[in-house]
């Protein structure tokens, strides 16, 4: 596999040749931030187009098809529209919190986005506690949602924010337990090491067989709820709450919530593909050496993005297939079924690992 650290080391050496150490670090930080933000925007545009088309096909429609070939530049037109919209100042709201809330949400989303391992040696944030940092950074977003609901001074927004807070906090329990299950299997929390291990030994979903496959399903359900997407989109429930916590936002402030929602979907799928489906590790089938050799020629970033879009497609499929749940059903699903199931999975996985039943 191509090791991306060659590129980063080359840039580092180039910058150090004419800059002092601190300035080189600063320039590198700015460069990485630019790359992250550009990728963030590009993936958002792709995801919104994909969502519209997939939604249309599930509902036997055509979807956007007027702007550009197959409606391909529809989303760009929407972005321009969003950018030129007025940001409305309202009376009787807490202005500071109202304006700050979208930034909290988008910062949390970008921090978690930076955790994804794109290729061998191309992870931006790569601590030895990677997964734990990912969970911690992800938990900031809920504060932004709660503040948005509170500061809008609108009862629909408030109810939406309360639902969203209850939902995200509940489903975070399942996500944490499922990730623990997989950490028991891998024995490390660093994203780069998890991917390297899967490149050497095979994907985790095959190594961990039954408990890992069940954990993957639990993760998909909980992750879908964590992103506030259907069938768990209670906070936004347009038929009851108009738009939930972001009903009072306009222009780019609304745009930030919209962006964060789609990128959270992408991040959720990206983590699923990193932890369960091997991240940038290519598909290897034991015994077929020629096939494995061909697979090694496909770059890691292509594997990573490809697997992530596959999981995104699964999540969109779920969204446009199932009807919305009620809020009590939603919480009952988590606390009465998913959480006990993930606790059992954790124990089963620990037993499998200690008895040597994994591959």
């Amino acid at each position, binding site marked *: 596999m191509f090791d991306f650290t060659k590129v980063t080391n080359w840039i580092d050496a180039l910058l150090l040749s004419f800059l002092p150490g*601190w300035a080189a670090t600063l320039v590198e930080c700015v460069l990485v931030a630019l790359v992250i933000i550009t990728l963030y925007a590009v993936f958002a545009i792709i995801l919104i187009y994909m969502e519209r088309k997939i939604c249309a096909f599930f509902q036997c429609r055509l979807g956007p098809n007027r702007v550009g070939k197959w409606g391909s530049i529809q989303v760009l037109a929407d972005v321009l529209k969003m950018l030129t919209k007025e940001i409305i100042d309202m009376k009787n709201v807490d202005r500071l919190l109202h304006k700050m809330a979208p930034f909290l949400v988008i910062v949390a989303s970008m921090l978690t986005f930076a955790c994804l391992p794109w290729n061998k040696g191309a992870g931006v944030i790569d*601590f030895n*506690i990677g997964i*734990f*940092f990912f969970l911690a950074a*992800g*938990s900031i977003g809920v*504060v932004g949602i709660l503040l948005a*609901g509170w500061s809008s001074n609108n009862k629909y927004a408030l109810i939406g924010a*309360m639902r969203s807070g209850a939902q995200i906090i509940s489903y975070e329990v399942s996500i944490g337990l499922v990730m623990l299950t997989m950490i028991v299997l891998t024995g490390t929390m660093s994203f780069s090491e998890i991917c390297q291990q899967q490149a050497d030994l095979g994907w985790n979903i095959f190594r961990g067989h039954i408990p890992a496959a069940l954990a993957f399903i639990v993760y998909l359900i909980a992750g879908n709820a964590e992103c506030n997407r259907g069938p768990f989109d209670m906070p936004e429930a347009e038929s009851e709450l108009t738009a939930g916590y972001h009903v009072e936002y306009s222009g780019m402030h609304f745009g930030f919530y919209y962006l964060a929602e789609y990128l959270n979907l992408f991040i959720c799928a990206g983590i699923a593909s990193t932890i369960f489906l091997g991240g940038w590790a290519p598909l290897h089938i034991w015994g077929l050496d020629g096939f494995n050799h061909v697979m090694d020629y496909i770059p890691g970033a292509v594997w990573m993005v490809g697997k992530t879009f596959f999981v995104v497609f699964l999540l969109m499929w779920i969204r446009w297939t199932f009807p919305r749940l009620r809020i009590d059903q939603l919480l009952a699903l988590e606390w009465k079924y998913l959480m006990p199931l993930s606790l059992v999975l954790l124990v089963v996985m620990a037993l499998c690992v200690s008895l040597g039943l994994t591959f």
Partner: protein
Amino acid sequence: MTTESIIFILLAAFVAVFSVLSVTTKRIIRAATYLLFVLFGTAGLYFLLGYTFLGAVQIMVYAGGIVVLYIFAIMLTGKSKDAQQKPIALGKRFAALMAALIGAGLLMFVVISHHFVSTSLSAEVTNESAAPISQIGSSLLSAGEGGNLLPFEAVSVLLLACIIGGLIIARKR
């Protein structure tokens, strides 16, 4: 002045400003938000020192857990947004002042009497020098020399007592 000290000063100023704001603001939800920023700043200090685990715990437990609970509680109790604050009684003001002074005095005593080992923060303080997660985990659950099993279990009993207490208070009679 090294890069680390510049970042430290920025973080320290950030923490100090938001600490003062969080106790001087009149609106309780803003106080909770400023507290959130204080906790971010503290997490930043841990990351600066290379203690990534402690920094992530700080964000996860305090920013993601405690502050969210505060905001939830404020939202659920509501109504107090426009409540006029009564002037605080003289006795209470005196008691608050004394508590602040004694607290500050104790803190200064501990800081001054403690002989800190002077070490320079350098580029060596990175991911590799931080204690690996496996070491933290085994030390947390070991009963041997330097193990933290007893405090760990004591805290879990405390949390259990809190949960039962909460259930009893919230129970419908």
